[in-house]
């Protein structure tokens, strides 16, 4: 039996407050949340319905010059130099007067992610914990996304499609773990889109994927589709071949390689396709694959709900396709969150961490707070679900 | 007989033994509204019906490759798409002793099947009678079934022919 009130709120309060710190990639996020202590939570799996109140959600993104990726060491420097200021802002916004008394738990991302950035945030988390004498919980980043998504959408037991710059996974809950049913065998979807954006030399702001989405919307030739490899392997998929192929098409287009008859008209030598067509075809192809593996997982575990999380999850075309798929299944429903929660943030770490804390599962020795670059979603023991 | 998916179509199938006028039938085969198949090439009801089913599917989607449903049955039986070859292999020859006569009637009229065209003994169209007359080696050859593949019984061979029939050209 799950008892989410295993640990009572501190200082006789009738609510819990958690501080969440996220810094696994180029986003530094700090959030403060509140859970009322509900009697109904003592018996039963209500972890998707904590009546969370978001007291603050502050984010600062490390931005690189156009066309450049982010190095771990520079990202770590960004986080290190901003983390205290962002924590301060988040506490002020949340009107936390005295963290020693007002915070129940400090949650930080233990992994997966880039080692140095994770570490720089962990140092701040440990210091706060010792200074304020507040317990710590190390959170799996992916589980953070899932729990935030469940809480926001109230989806009790969805199949989760987790799509971001570094991850592409189809996840479903079973026996106290979030099991990975399908995933990419090579590059992640976000990474694939980002790299193609660089080939197209389109801006990185606000995000490369967003700009591809806009170009795809402007495609004037939606009946025709540029044929791309379709590489679904059971519940897994592979994207590197698709990327290499569409990259070569784009390069031929820019270079004016008239020999490529797919791109240039045999007679006139005029280009037959545009950058918009490429973006549209790429999205249609990749997203069809994502929806298909999600549907495969749904069929496998007999689920009817889907939750999309991660940065790529804010793409409206992906949401639309997923919605259509669900509609054609029995009572299917798709849940997606908006960019506040899709994109990495501190609140999601607080949400997953607070659930874990309320089950009495928090750091007993600081050696448990060592960050880890590799931390699979299914390694986490999910005590807060049945 | 009718196929469940094609209720408006009547199919008549007659199996003849000891036919004496194969030569004569061949000479006027173009005018006769039937299909004639050398019974040596058929090992089961399933094999022949599978081909007829395929003919009906092709017909429904206007994909017939020959002039009539009857000639299409011979093509459908064949593992290759060469029409001439199909006729040669499955059609009757002058020395054919056992044959199958088929009428596919789409107009739902009464059968106009003229049994007198064939001089021979009509026996039940069933697996036992077909197996008596079939030539397993010839069938293996026609369907290009590797000698290394061993069949425990005729139904396994039949299954291989069904696969070939369903998969032709795809």
């Amino acid at each position, binding site marked *: 039996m799950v008892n989410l009130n295993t640990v009572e709120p501190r200082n006789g309060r009738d609510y819990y407050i958690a501080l969440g710190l996220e810094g696994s990639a180029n986003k530094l996020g700090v959030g403060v949340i509140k859970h009322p202590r509900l009697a109904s939570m003592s018996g039963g799996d209500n972890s998707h319905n904590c009546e969370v109140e978001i007291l603050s959600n502050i984010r600062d993104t490390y931005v690189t010059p156009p066309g450049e990726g982010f190095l771990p060491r520079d990202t770590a420097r960004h986080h290190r130099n901003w983390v*205290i*200021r962002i924590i301060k802002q988040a506490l002020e916004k949340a009107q936390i007067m005295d963290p020693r008394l007002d915070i129940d738990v400090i949650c930080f991302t233990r992994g997966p992610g880039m080692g140095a950035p994770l570490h720089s945030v962990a*140092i701040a988390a440990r*210091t706060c914990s*010792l*200074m304020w004498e507040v317990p710590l919980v190390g959170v799996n980043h992916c589980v953070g996304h899932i729990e935030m998504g469940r809480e926001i959408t109230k989806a009790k037991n969805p199949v989760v499609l987790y799509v971001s710059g570094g991850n592409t996974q189809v996840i479903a809950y079973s026996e106290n773990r979030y099991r990975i049913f399908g995933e990419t065998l090579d590059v992640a979807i976000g990474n694939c889109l980002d790299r193609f954006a660089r080939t197209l030399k389109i801006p990185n702001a606000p995000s490369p994927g967003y700009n591809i989405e806009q170009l795809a919307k402007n495609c004037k030739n939606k009946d025709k589709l540029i044929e791309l490899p379709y590489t679904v392997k059971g519940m897994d998929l592979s994207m590197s071949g698709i990327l290499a192929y569409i990259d070569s098409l784009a390069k031929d287009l820019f270079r004016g390689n008239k020999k490529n008859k797919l791109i240039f008209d045999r007679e006139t030598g005029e280009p037959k396709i545009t950058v918009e067509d490429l973006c549209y075809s790429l999205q249609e192809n990749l997203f069809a694959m994502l929806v298909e593996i999600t549907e495969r997982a749904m069929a496998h575990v007999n689920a009817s709900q889907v939750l999309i999380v991660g940065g790529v999850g804010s793409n409206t075309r992906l949401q639309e396709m997923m919605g259509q798929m669900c509609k054609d299944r029995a009572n299917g429903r798709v849940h997606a969150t908006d960019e506040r929660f899709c994109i990495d943030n501190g609140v999601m770490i607080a949400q997953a961490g607070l659930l874990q804390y309320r089950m009495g599962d928090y750091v007993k020795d*600081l050696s448990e*707070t*060592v960050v880890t670059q590799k931390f699979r979603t299914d390694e986490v023991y999910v005590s807060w679900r049945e | 007989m009718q196929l469940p998916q094609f209720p408006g179509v009547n199919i008549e199938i007659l199996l003849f033994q000891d036919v004496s006028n194969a030569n004569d039938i061949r000479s006027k085969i173009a005018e006769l509204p039937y299909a004639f198949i050398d019974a040596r090439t058929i090992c089961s009801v399933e094999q022949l019906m599978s081909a007829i089913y395929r003919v009906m599917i092709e017909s429904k989607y206007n994909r017939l490759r020959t002039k009539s449903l009857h000639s299409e049955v011979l093509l459908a039986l064949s593992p290759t798409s060469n029409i001439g070859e199909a006729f040669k292999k499955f059609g009757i020859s002058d020395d054919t002793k056992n044959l199958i006569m088929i009428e596919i009637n789409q107009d739902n009229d009464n059968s106009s099947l003229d049994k007198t065209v064939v001089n021979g003994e009509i026996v039940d169209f069933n697996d036992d009678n077909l197996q008596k007359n079939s030539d397993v080696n010839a069938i293996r050859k026609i369907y290009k079934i590797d000698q290394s593949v061993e069949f425990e019984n005729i139904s396994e061979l039949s299954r291989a022919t069904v696969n070939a029939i369903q998969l032709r050209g795809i």
Partner: protein
Amino acid sequence: MSLSHTLTLNVPFENSNQANIAMKVLQPDPILKPQDFEVTYTTEGNDLVASFASIDDRVLRVGVSNVIDSIKTIIETMDEL
């Protein structure tokens, strides 16, 4: 090769509690290349003492600078929060 390149760093905090916290924060992280680099943390009164030993100056430079970065974060946390 021996860890013959050493550096001892002394960081005086306002009180022993702060020095202690800093030590506890730094201690858990494992040494990435134990055969090339070592670090131990102790406190002496209000001071945090970090003793580094390394196979050469390169590894020492990276290791020491990383630890100082962390100590600066610790100090800022205590200062601001």
